[in-house]
């Protein structure tokens, strides 16, 4: 129940708040920062920070999809397998996972779309450093003042990709 709620927190959390939270966790004087610092790792402002921010904000989509997929499997199907094989791992990899494949893939596509469009948390936590932490949405933001046409081109690219992802999700859901 608590874990279930925690998984959903990033979905409702404003991205800026997520960025602040991540900063406090990973900053050199933050919660985990000193430990990482000891090994010479500085997370904020790095490419790793972009990945962490995007995973933090977007992963609930795939987690939720997987959870729903697992729950929608008829318990008697799992029970059948439990009677036939002692291995829980085998049941997971031969029954649970294959039966959830489509829903998890569709969740992954959603996650990717969310990560691609991530703006607030990345800006707060990783910054907007060209070639290091600048993502497409951040680049559009930077370009808007200097080169509006460039911003429009990048936007068009994002629109096409988003649309393609949506179609992919629809196909996955329909096949089910």
């Amino acid at each position: 129940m608590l874990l279930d709620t925690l998984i959903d927190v990033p979905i409702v959390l404003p991205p800026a708040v997520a960025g602040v939270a991540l900063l406090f966790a990973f900053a050199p004087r933050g919660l985990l920062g000193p430990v990482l610092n000891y090994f010479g790792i500085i997370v904020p402002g790095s490419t790793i920070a972009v990945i962490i921010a995007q995973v933090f904000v977007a992963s609930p989509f795939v987690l939720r999809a997987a959870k729903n997929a697992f729950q929608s499997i008829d318990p008697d199907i799992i029970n059948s397998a439990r009677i036939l094989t002692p291995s829980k791992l085998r049941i997971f990899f031969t029954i649970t996972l294959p039966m959830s494949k489509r829903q998890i893939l569709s969740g992954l596509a959603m996650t990717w779309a969310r990560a691609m469009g991530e703006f607030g948390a990345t800006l707060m936590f990783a910054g907007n450093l060209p070639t290091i932490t600048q993502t497409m949405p951040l680049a559009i933001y930077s370009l808007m003042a200097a080169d509006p046409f460039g911003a429009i081109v990048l936007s068009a690219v994002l629109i096409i990709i988003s649309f393609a992802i949506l179609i992919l999700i629809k196909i996955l859901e329909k096949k089910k």
Partner: protein
Amino acid sequence: MIRLESVSKAFGEKEVLQKLSFEVKEHEILALLGPNGCGKSTALNMIAGLIPPDGGQIFIDDRLVDGRQGKKKIHISPSARKLGYVFQNQALFPHMLVRDNIAYGLKSGGRSEQEIDTQTKKLLEFVGLTEFGNHYPRQISGGQKQRASLARSIATNPKILLLDEPLSAVDTRSKESLRQAFNGVLQHLKTTTIYVTHNLTEALMIADRIAILGNGRIEQIGTRDEVLSKPKSRFVAEFLGTNIYDGEVAPEESTRDQIEIAGVSISAPISDYSPGQALLVTIRPEDVALLPELDANDLKRNDHTVNVLEGVIVDILLMKSMVHITIDVGFPIKSAITLRSFIDLNLTEGKRVYVQFKVNVISKCENHEGIERYNQTSSLG
């Protein structure tokens, strides 16, 4: 082979099973019969190890698989119990071919690919699905799915077979042939089997013994004839759809063996009971003959061996090939006759007729609930 001792189970506040005890002998087919929601499936799931009981002990082959041994709590995992289970909704793996479904259990036994392949082919043939090995479950009919499910459950040569309402999810048309197929397989295998059903006919046709489950416990267990002709409680009698009466043994001064039902005296052997004792009396509708009129012969036979009573038809219930006629003879009594005789006798409600039943078809048991006002019994069969 399988033994349950005082097994209990509750879901939340609801006590589903209380002190359930029964035994299934080796090679025996036991039908666990009862109305929906009486805990039959729960009992089966506990024997399979899918859910743990709250209390009591379960033994398989004299080995404790559930319960307490000293201070240690024992729970043997489902796969270690070496049993086969056929689920009501088949529960086939939808993403696997029928052939792979059947082979699933074989693959965790260290057999060679070739061995698994031959064994699977044999099983497909055995249940009549030779041409359907390369189909997905969604591509075959309900009856075929149930055959596949049966093949999957017997693939590993289990010592015990558990079947949970295997015919209930199948349409009526294919039910009969599927029942025959199941019957054939079960008779051939001679595996110790528990067959859960709410259908009396299925239980009668398939099982060696029948256990009737009601109110969270076994109401009666016995052979087909024992259960049919000597129901031990009101619950069993009601479930079987027989005539049930609160009767009373005639007082001592009476010269003959008599039981009084709603003020009407009928002849019945009552040597086992004391005068004035309250009894639960049951008579199967098939044992009650219906006569439009009496000839001299019938009247002469109205003695110690046969009861003949006059009454009025109050209800007619047409079933598939039988007709249940209820006649008020001072108490309502149901008679089952064939559709042919129903048409020939030209029976209508309100018509005066005679009923006739032998004294040896009257079954009696002690009435623990005491004498209650007679209620028209409902047929659940």
